[in-house]
């Protein structure tokens, strides 16, 4: 296969057809196509409207708590003995992860479009909680689809969503995890097209979602850029983030895409190990195909059936990845590594013990490769890691790994 040509401006995508090179697009049933076009037009209008941006900025400042700090992780820096390590502290946002950035943007858009009912899918429950939160704040009814398996392993988040007034519908079809929750949300949307807004939680799905979610999450990278320039007077040598669907990663990568000196490194979930086949690494262990409205790297069998993902982290337990990551991989602008369940849990412990921060197991996948990256960059270098979520939700999982009762 010929490698695609490198573009002059990486940030100029998607094109008018919602494509990042070969990836992305709008593979949805006809019933949804008129809505998807409406959404695209409404988003473009909102994006160009300074009043919309000002309203969003106001809520991000006063409700979400932005900007999030850029923190020098001094003890981890010393521990690894390589580059200076900074954390972008997205776990300090309201609701405990980067997910709220996107939810705040999309709910303002939904109201601008006159929609009166919100649906969402969730895996770990972080996006479900963030969606339920903004729905409570603006008084809109909210239905969250969640795989029955995930409902069982993320009970505290289910209760949180209920407290916020959302209805959580367990999904038993298929493998009863995140991909099935997304199927079920799409079925709801196709059935309730008139009043319902589908608030997708990651930078995947049909155009314009990958672009829109990326734009709403790019506040992470824009702040990081300003903050590292203020702290160090220069850009970092590498930026590291975990990748499931990839919204936190694309959010911090995007403002650096045209800075050739900044390495962009995504870390996929290797589950029980890449050689076991039980993983969630779409780029490292999959091939391009079509699912949930977009062409992208997917875990699938030889006949094109989607296979189940496996990861200790419910938030990374998805057989696909956002289309922009697929393209950044193919053109070589970003590189995608992997971390196993075990490596991520060890990184979780290390971060807790040295920095006093419990990271989400999702973010711990990025932490698991941080030492390699920091040593590779070297002592004169600077590395920024997106600490995308906090790990309070994961203490039961970590306890089970350590063989302890809580």
């Amino acid at each position: 296969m010929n490698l695609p040509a490198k573009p002059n401006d990486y940030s100029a995508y998607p094109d008018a057809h919602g494509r990042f090179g070969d990836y992305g697009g709008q593979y949805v049933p006809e019933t949804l196509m008129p809505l998807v076009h409406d959404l695209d037009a409404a988003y473009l209008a909102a994006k160009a409207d300074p009043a919309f941006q000002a309203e969003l900025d106001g809520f991000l400042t006063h409700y979400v708590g932005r900007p999030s700090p850029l923190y020098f992780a001094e003890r981890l820096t010393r521990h690894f003995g390589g580059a200076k390590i900074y954390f972008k502290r997205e776990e300090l946002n309201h609701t405990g992860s980067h997910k709220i950035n996107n939810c705040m943007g999309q709910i303002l858009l939904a109201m601008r479009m006159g929609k009166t009912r919100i649906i969402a899918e969730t895996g770990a429950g972080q996006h479900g909680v963030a969606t339920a939160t903004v729905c409570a704040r603006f008084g809109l009814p909210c239905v969250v689809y969640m795989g029955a398996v995930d409902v069982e392993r993320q009970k505290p988040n289910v209760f949180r969503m209920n407290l916020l007034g959302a209805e959580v519908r367990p999904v038993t079809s298929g493998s009863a995890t995140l991909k099935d929750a997304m199927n079920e949300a799409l079925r709801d949307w196709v059935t309730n097209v008139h009043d319902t807004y589908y608030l997708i939680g990651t930078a995947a799905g049909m155009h314009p979602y990958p672009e829109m979610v990326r734009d709403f999450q790019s506040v992470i990278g824009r702040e990081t850029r300003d903050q590292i320039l203020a702290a160090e007077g220069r850009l970092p040598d590498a930026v590291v983030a975990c990748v499931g669907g990839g919204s936190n990663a694309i959010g911090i990568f995007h403002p650096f895409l045209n800075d050739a000196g900044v390495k962009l490194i995504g870390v996929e979930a290797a589950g029980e190990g890449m050689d076991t086949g039980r993983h969630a690494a779409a780029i490292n262990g999959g091939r391009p195909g079509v699912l949930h409205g977009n062409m992208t790297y997917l875990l699938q069998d030889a006949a094109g059936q989607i296979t189940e993902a496996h990861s200790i982290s419910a938030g990374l337990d998805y057989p696909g990845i956002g289309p922009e990551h697929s393209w950044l991989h193919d053109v070589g602008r970003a590189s995608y590594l992997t971390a196993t369940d075990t490596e991520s849990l060890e990184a979780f412990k290390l971060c807790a013990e040295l920095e006093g921060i419990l990271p989400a197991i999702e973010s711990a996948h990025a932490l698991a490769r941080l030492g390699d990256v920091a040593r590779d960059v070297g002592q004169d270098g600077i590395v920024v890691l997106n600490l995308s979520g906090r790990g309070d939700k994961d203490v039961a999982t970590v306890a089970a790994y350590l063989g302890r009762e809580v």
Partner: protein
Amino acid sequence: MTKARIDARFAALRAEGRAAFVAYVMAGDPDADTALQILKGLPAAGADIIELGFPFSDPMAEGPPIQRAAQRALARGMTLKGTLDLARAFRDGDQDTPIILMGYTNPLVTWGYDAFARDAAAAGIDGMIVVDLPPEESDPLADALDAAHLSLIRLATPTTDDRRLPVVLRRTSGFVYYVSVAGVTGVKEADARTVAPHVERVRAASQLPVAVGFGIRTPERAAAIARVADAVVVGSALVDEVAGAVDMNEDVTARVLRKVASLAKAVRFARQGLAAV
């Protein structure tokens, strides 16, 4: 053959003054052998056109009946290749009944559109419906199907307004499939009075026959739709017969074909004002 087979079938039905009955069967449900027996029995039971579903793991526009049918078929190892094998085995004994494949994009991407179109034509397939491939994304497949003389049958829906309808109809051949309800298959019920003006709208914009499907479960409803459309598609109700027969340990083929016969009879006599059942 191919496109010609669909056109010939509709021309013959037009001469008879009746609508077509289109029966949907999921390939490999409950297993490959039984599905082939059902396929072979469909024309005699009154099916004028066959829609042959190829299973996909994540069928986003299907309700529970067809989701479960796909899972049963996949559990028994059915694939797109196995689906073509079934079509070929059917075609050996029937040269006239059009077969339309219906499913999702990813197995086709895996095969490669051009190679697949050639192989499908060789297996006796006449056309394709790909649920998650709207006009915006279907030119590459349409090119491949054109080269193999297969029809691409597009879906028009209640949300397809007059401005968009020409986009849907461009490169559609054989017939147009009007989705009677905004929703997934087999859940909401289709209403002939609501559907009729939409069928007229599609007819006015194209020369093609208009089939109506999604939400047609009973002979009464099938007859009502047959009075306003050129073809009536039943899927979930037939797939439910497979599930019911498996659960009750009954003869699956006999039970499905009984249901097909009652629906086909209702469609056949709908415009004669006869009590059909």
